[in-house]
């Protein structure tokens, strides 16, 4: 994907810092001077130890929190609030429990001008894309974790966002389901050509998925290094090169 470097970066995280007031009255610097960019169509993972501010960074990029310094830009425009251009997928799914799978997928479409027929068509397209056909009328409480997250992804993609922001989306499913969802996500990514920014604490997951891995380190959270993963997909965990990338990222996290 050499041509990407010449294009305008889709997401630019520019000198982002975030300080909180801790309970005891001190200022805690959660993030400091975070700089990186994500190109159009790229799959970027953010990894780091717990407490490095990954989730805070995710929330800032999503527009759910404002940085105390720096800016996040999407296609050149500063991000100030959540909007349809950034689809969000959460670890705990965040599905509307009173809506069926289809109802969840249609939620965003109901906020657009799409008429009922168009909404139904688009929702069905997304449901087929994530492999949920046959479960359209199931409520979230009737679905397994993996199925719930498929609904979450379909819902986020339904309004055709510029980027997909995912915060540890597969952190609550078992290992087998996670492997399957990795394959599915890569297939969906290839098909939709979306830009994906994916937060995880799991290095193996990051090496499995990402074009590039942004390694954050602690205290305060900042970019330690950006590791490109130039391996062909599908990637095998038993492959030597896979292991070398994994070691590299783990070393960066360990040594800070």
């Amino acid at each position: 994907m050499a041509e990407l470097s010449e294009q305008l970066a889709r997401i630019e995280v520019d000198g982002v810092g975030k300080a909180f007031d801790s309970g005891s009255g001190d200022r805690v610097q959660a993030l400091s001077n975070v700089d990186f960019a994500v190109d159009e169509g790229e799959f970027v993972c953010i990894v780091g130890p717990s407490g490095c501010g990954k989730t805070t960074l995710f929330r800032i990029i999503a527009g759910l929190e404002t940085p105390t310094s720096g800016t996040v830009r999407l296609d050149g425009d500063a991000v100030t609030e959540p909007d349809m251009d950034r689809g969000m997928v959460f670890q705990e799914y965040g599905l509307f429990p009173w809506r069926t799978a289809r109802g969840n997928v249609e939620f965003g479409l109901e906020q657009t001008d799409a008429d009922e027929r168009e909404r139904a068509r688009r929702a069905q397209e997304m449901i087929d894309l994530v492999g949920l056909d046959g479960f359209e009328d199931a409520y979230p409480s009737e679905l397994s974790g993996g199925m719930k997250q498929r609904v979450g992804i379909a819902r986020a993609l339904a309004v055709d966002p510029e980027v997909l922001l995912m915060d540890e989306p597969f952190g609550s499913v078992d290992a087998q389901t996670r492997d399957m969802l990795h394959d599915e996500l890569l297939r969906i990514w290839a098909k939709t050509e979306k830009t994906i920014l994916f937060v995880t604490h799991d290095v193996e997951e990051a090496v499995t998925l990402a074009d590039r891995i942004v390694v954050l380190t602690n205290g305060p959270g900042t970019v330690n290094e950006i590791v490109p993963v130039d391996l062909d997909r599908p990637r095998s965990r038993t492959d030597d090169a896979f292991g070398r990338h994994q070691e590299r990222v783990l070393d960066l996290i360990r040594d800070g």
Partner: protein
Amino acid sequence: MSIESATERESDATPGTRVRVSGAALRRHLLGLLGTVGFLLAWQAGAMAIAKPFLLPSPFAVASAFVSELASGRMLAKLAQSLFHYVPGLVVGTGLGIAVGVGMGWSETLDSALTPVTRVLRPIPPLAWIAFAIVWIGIGHGGATFIVAIGAFWINFYNAYSGVESVPEDLQDVAASLGIHDDLRMIRKVVLPSATPEILTGVRTSIGQCWMIVVAAELFGAPGVGYQIINAAQNLAMDVSVVYMLVISAVFLVSDALFRTVEGRLLAWRN
């Protein structure tokens, strides 16, 4: 799809479970019947031992009083009188309670402004307002309606408030990322549906609690079933008192069952 194995396991288990459940249900119904018969026998024995119907009327006396109250049309007339303040009081109190509860649960400004007032007023039992009901409206349908409304208000206020307070933050974040940017839409599309189970619990609780208030208000002289209980007792017609006590129970059981059906339909998404 292999991740569906959990569902398959459940459906495998269903037939065996169903047999066991219906066996247990049969046993429970038999025991219930036995308990009821035992209770009636004990009651009858007690009534025979005391042998003073104005202290304890026998089940037979109650049954015959029931038939005569029903046949004379008095029972339905008294019930209608009670419903005439129960229903409007319940509807108005529930509506206002939900509205204020949702408002305060949603808006921090409103919450901060009204919390001291609600904290002081909420513990006051609705019946304590009877003084105002008498002075302002008089103790008829109006006064009773007023007191019932106060009772319904606080129950629904509290449930709606805590229902809205506990709407998961995630859902609002997701909704914002899917194009919900103003408060009214957020309330309509996310907050109210999410708080519906608690709001309905409030409504159901108030359906029961308001009957207590109705009876209490009628003890002060508003016409209706509760007044009839006291009135009959003053004439030492305890069998008639019991009849009207049972009328309240029956009305509650019917309205609660109806409401459960509605609730079950509205909350089909749970489980």
